[in-house]
């Protein structure tokens, strides 16, 4: 049987979810292998080197750079407080002295005889990493971080904004075609992960932000509304660090597109469960898609859950079209011809024959996405 690999987002109802929690620099791991953790648990921490302030003492004292060391009042490696005297000239008979005060609290790191620059390093900046989701520490990377494992739901979106967030899942619509509206969002949804159907408008999303919703999961959003939220035009899909409070995960794409049936059904099934989400998206080599994780509380045996495998398209596969002119339609693959075929655009491509609503269509394989059914 013909077979083709297509991109597909993971929509898995029960799988083993592993999340690496790694420090930006080596530091200290605070949990042991095998420990159970909650999302807020700090699992590793380190200190980034403090900020650096450079002060050109030679210029400020109006002396030669090579003479700067003799005017310094603080020794290398010693602490200094903001406003303390850092360097001073002797003046004339003790009068007309010039002085330089430290602009920050820190440690005197270096004094240059060539440039007259003095470097003061501020206190190290602490960095902590939490567990992100309920689970178990399955691996400890010495001085670098841990891997948290859990069994649960794992759903990838196509695009997201905002970083990690978590809260109780609240499905606010009856079906996957229904649009999420302002009226559906109330104050008691503060800190929740809310789910809509086909679309969320800019105003509704702003309402979610104002209420303090942790995250919104929905089928589609208008591309041009992103600018209003981000304050700039999103040119490249690299997100995650924006401070917007309410993360957004769209599962299908830009525009009004019903959420995939399988994603919607799973989210509906686990309505009310504690959920961790991450809107961070990076569509480049090393692709990162936004994710929704709903860890199970009552399953301990990691091996008892079988990981769904990603497969390719075969005849009979259920697929979704991911580009115009049939964008968003779902159909069944009836044939995967081997030969290249000419499209209306005259582009020669590998195609799939797909039955959509009892009509046959020929669609480039590159424009199809597998809809996982098991």
């Amino acid at each position, binding site marked *: 049987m013909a077979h083709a690999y297509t991109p597909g987002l993971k929509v898995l109802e029960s799988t083993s979810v592993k999340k690496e929690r790694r420090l930006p620099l080596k530091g200290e791991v605070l949990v042991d292998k095998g420990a159970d953790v909650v999302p807020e648990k700090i699992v590793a921490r380190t200190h980034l080197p403090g900020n*650096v302030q450079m002060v050109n003492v030679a210029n400020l004292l109006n002396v030669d750079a090579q003479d700067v060391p003799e005017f310094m009042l603080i020794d290398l490696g010693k602490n200094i407080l903001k406003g303390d005297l850092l360097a001073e000239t002797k003046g004339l008979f003790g009068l007309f002295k010039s002085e330089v005060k430290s602009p920050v609290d820190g440690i005197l790191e270096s004094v240059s005889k*060539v440039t007259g620059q003095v470097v003061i390093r501020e206190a190290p900046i602490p960095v902590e990493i939490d567990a992100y989701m309920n689970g178990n520490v399955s691996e400890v990377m010495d001085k670098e971080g841990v891997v948290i494992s859990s069994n649960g739901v794992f759903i990838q979106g196509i*695009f997201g904004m905002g970083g990690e967030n978590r809260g109780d899942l609240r499905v606010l619509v009856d079906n996957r075609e229904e649009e999420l509206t302002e009226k559906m969002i109330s104050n008691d949804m503060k800190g929740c992960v809310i789910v809509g159907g086909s679309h969320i408008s800019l105003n509704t999303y702003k309402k979610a932000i104002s209420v303090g919703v942790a995250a919104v999961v929905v089928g589609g959003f208008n591309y041009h509304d992103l600018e209003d939220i981000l304050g700039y035009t*999103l*040119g*490249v899909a690299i997100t995650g660090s924006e401070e917007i409070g309410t993360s957004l995960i769209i599962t299908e794409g830009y525009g009004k597109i019903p959420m995939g049936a399988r994603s919607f059904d799973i989210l509906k099934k686990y309505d009310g469960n504690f959920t961790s989400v991450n809107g961070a998206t990076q569509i*480049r080599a090393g692709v990162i898609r936004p994710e929704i994780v709903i860890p199970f509380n009552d399953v301990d045996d990691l091996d008892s859950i079988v990981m769904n495998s990603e497969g390719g398209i075969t005849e009979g596969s259920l697929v979704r079209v991911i580009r115009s002119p049939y964008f968003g339609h779902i159909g069944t693959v009836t044939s995967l011809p081997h030969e290249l075929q000419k499209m209306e655009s*005259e582009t020669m491509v590998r195609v799939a024959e797909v039955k959509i609503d009892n009509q046959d269509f020929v669609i*480039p394989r590159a424009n199809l996405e597998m809809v996982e059914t098991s």
Partner: protein
Amino acid sequence: MKKLQSILATDCGSTTTKAILIEFIDGEYRLRFRGEAPTTVEAPFEDVTRGVLNAVMEVEELSSRKLLEGEKIITPHKDNEGVDIYVSTSSAGGGLQMMVAGVVKSMSGESAERAALGAGSIVMDVLASNDGRKPHEKITRIRQLRPDMILLSGGIDGGTTKHVVELAEILKAANPQPRLGSDYKLPVIYAGNNKARDEISKTLGEQTDLTIVENIRPILERENLNPSRDKIHDLFMEHVMQQAPGYNKLMSWTDAPIMPTPGAVGSLIEMIAEEENISVVGVDIGGATTDIFSVFQNQFNRTVSANLGMSYSICNVLAEASLKNVLRWVPLDMDEKELTNRIGNKMIRPTTVPQSMEELKIEQAIAREALRLSFIQHKSFAVNLKGVQKERTISDAFEQSDSGLSLVNMMELDLLVGSGGVLSHAPRREQSARMLIDSFLPEGITQLAVDSIFMMPQLGVLANIDQKDLAESARKAALEVFNKDCLIRLGTCVAPVGKANVGDEILSVTLAMQDGSEKQVILHQGELLAIPAEYEPINATLNPAKGMDVGAGKNEQINTTVYGGVIGLVFDGRGRPFNLPVENDKRISSLNIWSNAMNEYPDEIK
């Protein structure tokens, strides 16, 4: 000298690894087979050689020639097995990412940037003493970026050392960590004032892996880029590649050092310009970036427009060019919200292809703007050395000629080469020609070509083999394959420059064709004409109308030889500068007339 019979070359791109097999048959080198496979730098494979083996296996299957013994490329060639040499380029894992620093941004800063770009790297930022940022801002920036390598320059030899040492102190305070691998020191190349070398060593010697090379700008009037470029290549191999997954193994397989992909393409463009003594512009438009290479007045320049591409950064083209500028190329009335959502969806699903003619036209409209913007960036970077004192005569004073003028002169341009998916794989070559003409707006007489299957990287590394016994044969192979299999000659564009009213006659041409026939062409302002002609010499007499210039000056006749190609000769009377009609109806009508003239789209859906 060793005569090469067969050559295997790969290019490990960020998404695909491409392999080509070149063989010496019937007295000439030709491309025989090509294979490709997904690049495997990232999880779950994390070993670049897997993708290389998969691509080579495809070549093996197509050629029915055994190339692999287990997981090893068989060398040398023997009977119907193996190849004589194997070479590779790489841009996987984000390519080579550098930060450069110079004392004066427009002088040593720019020279350092030129050296880094010429070596094939992406320049993440240019630090300079006069860039307006405070030291702590520079330090924060260096820490954020985590480059693979830093090139530090500044000062002429024997000049003042203070400023360049100050930059070194900033680098030291920032203590930058390399992007890949946490256990090695960041490579820093110092290519500045030779008098400051001791101080630079004292400042950076312990904390970084410091290498000192000749000054990039020993005197104001001269740039000396090669020592820095060569050192960047060496360090790319020694450090950056060592950290990338699987590259140690790949390096042990290749018969010549692995080159960064854009470095290889650039060197090939440079070589073509040198061999034929012509001015060349080459462009590679990819999913994320657009690279432009040029050689004018024997000076090579390369720029990378990091976020102007056709998939990953397609929305950035929209943001930078504006929707209005993209839409002006679309011969349809479109709802703006619908269009932006469509383009957004291409960004988040970058591997999709245009199925309908409407989708294709939208993509090609965006490509025109991406190319146009990239070329604007290139023209502002490819300039004469700044800061050079020139003796000026009284006539110069009237011309206002100065340092820092762009080297790019479209009237002087001889050959424009396009590559990258949207140009190389356009369903009709006429579409590639139109995209090149509309976005680069060549003036006078310019040959057009596209890279058939994007094999310039592999040919570039082949042309750069240093080993004495292989160099000549490898270079010959690279040039022959480039001319016979890589370059598709589209034809020649003739575009008069000057002021005229729409409908005025601006050029009359007499063409003496190879079959002995003669053709007359009359070009009017606003017209675009295509005359079919093979890639063979055609004697042309070009008579520009009053006030028009086609290369020899206003009103000057030209007798020259032009070449056709798969499109033929294109006469572009749409004016330079080129402006589309403002009224929507007229704009759409003009676009359709020009498309018809070039036979760009099929009849039924024009």
